[in-house]
């Protein structure tokens, strides 16, 4: 309660509105009430947001299996009675409101009946159907995110090939902003059947060279003249097409299908659904000595031909020690 002297013992019940109408108050007190109310309301809003969608999503999945799976399939991939709702690109551009309208009104000409459901269930179901196609970051995905993260770095061994937010090994694609690109449903498919969709630049090839050697790895880049293969140790090999006798395309992904139980899988999907990329700020990758790659010592003492820093060497004199072209033969240089 705020009295005329302006002492500030503010209690929640003063914000209910009704109590304060009889009071004469200064402008200052009014502003204090507004500011304090604003401070409280985000907390309430956050509480609503963080709990309701998580609970609703698993309820919604149950409603779906009861009301919708009969025609649209238990996996929402469609049956001869109804079209696919998961992986349906047309649905991706539809809003939750549009989907809600279709559920509650039906499409009489198309054979979809109207479903009369309580408002809460209807909203949750519409959000669930929307989530089958929208990027995972925009959907409420049920599951325990922290358990999913523990599985990712632990038992699942996902970090041994994937980097997330600077942690892990860069063998396969970086997953830091995965949730912005794939829907929750596509994440599930990628985990259970990795060969279904292989990220460009990560197709497995084996190149047989004319000299008898073979190089197996990811075809990071190719043209009519050459192919750049990143072998499974991370080394890049440039192979000219005229050195290669055959290129075998393995149509399978190097990633094995995820061997997780249903609950673990859901937790993992929940974790992946919150990977929205790296935000500015110090990362939580703990400091450690730099792994293999270019080291400071090598920058300080470069091998002939190395140009590992902007000015060539740390002394900044931009001098190259290469001697194929030298003071004696430079006048023989010609355009070819």
């Amino acid at each position, binding site marked *: 309660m705020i009295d005329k002297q302006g002492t500030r013992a503010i209690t929640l019940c003063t914000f209910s509105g009704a109590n304060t109408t009889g009071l004469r108050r200064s402008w200052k007190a009014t502003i204090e009430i507004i500011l304090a109310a604003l401070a409280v309301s985000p907390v309430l809003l956050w509480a609503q947001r963080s709990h309701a969608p998580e609970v609703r999503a698993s309820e919604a999945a149950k409603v779906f299996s009861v009301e919708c799976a009969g025609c649209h399939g238990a996996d929402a991939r469609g049956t001869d009675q109804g079209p696919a709702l998961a992986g349906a690109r047309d649905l991706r551009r539809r809003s939750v409101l549009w989907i809600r309208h279709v559920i509650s009104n039906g499409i009489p000409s198309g054979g979809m009946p109207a479903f009369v459901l309580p408002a809460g269930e209807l909203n949750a179901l519409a959000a669930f159907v929307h989530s089958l196609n929208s990027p995972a970051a925009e959907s409420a995905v049920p599951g325990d995110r922290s358990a999913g993260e523990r599985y990712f770095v632990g038992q699942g061994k996902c970090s041994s090939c994937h980097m997330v937010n600077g942690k892990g090994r860069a063998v396969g694609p970086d997953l*830091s902003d995965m949730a912005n690109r794939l829907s929750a449903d596509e994440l599930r498919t990628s985990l259970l059947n990795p060969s279904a969709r292989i990220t460009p630049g990560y197709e497995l090839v084996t190149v047989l060279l004319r000299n008898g050697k073979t190089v197996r790895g990811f075809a990071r880049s190719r043209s009519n*003249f050459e192919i750049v293969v990143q072998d499974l140790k991370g080394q890049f090999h440039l192979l000219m097409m005229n050195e290669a006798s055959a290129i075998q395309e393995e149509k399978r992904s190097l990633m094995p299908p995820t061997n997780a139980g249903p609950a673990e899988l859901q937790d993992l999907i929940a974790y992946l659904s919150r990977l929205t990329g790296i935000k500015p700020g110090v990362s*939580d*990758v703990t400091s*450690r000595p730099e792994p293999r790659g270019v080291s400071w010592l090598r920058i300080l003492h470069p091998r002939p031909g190395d140009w590992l820093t902007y000015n060539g060497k740390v002394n900044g004199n931009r001098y190259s020690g290469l001697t194929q072209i030298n003071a004696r033969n430079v006048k023989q240089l010609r355009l070819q």
Partner: protein
Amino acid sequence: MYVTGPHEAFALDVSTGQEIWHYWRPRPPELNVGDAALGTNRGLAILGDKVFKVTQDAHLIALNRTTGKLVWEVVMPPKGMKNYGSTLAPLIVRDMVIAGVSGGDWPGVRGFVAAYRASDGKLIWRFDMIPANGTLAAKSWGGNVPPDVGGGATWLTGS
């Protein structure tokens, strides 16, 4: 080899120019027309499994050398300071990435050099070319550094 632009970086094969990866980010809207940082980027630095470059709006970013994806990103100018750009190729010294800013022609851009830890982007030190009010060096300005003073931009890689 690595080639950069103000908001992108390429990894190319040295013999053929074949692109291995391409990192891209959208241009930030706030820079002034005619700012050098809009069109210039002088290259990147390499240490370990990461490469480092600055962006037009004076962010320092680290990319993984193999995948070309972002590993960490820090905003170099102190909070709320505008008109800063950056063009230089960062310099590696031991386990630190040292970078500076450009835009000394614009008001309020007090140039500085800053060193960040290469593994995670933590700021290790920053040296202001034009001191902030209240610091010891501000005495050389008569104790009062005008808020719109600009200069001392550090847009060339040191040695």
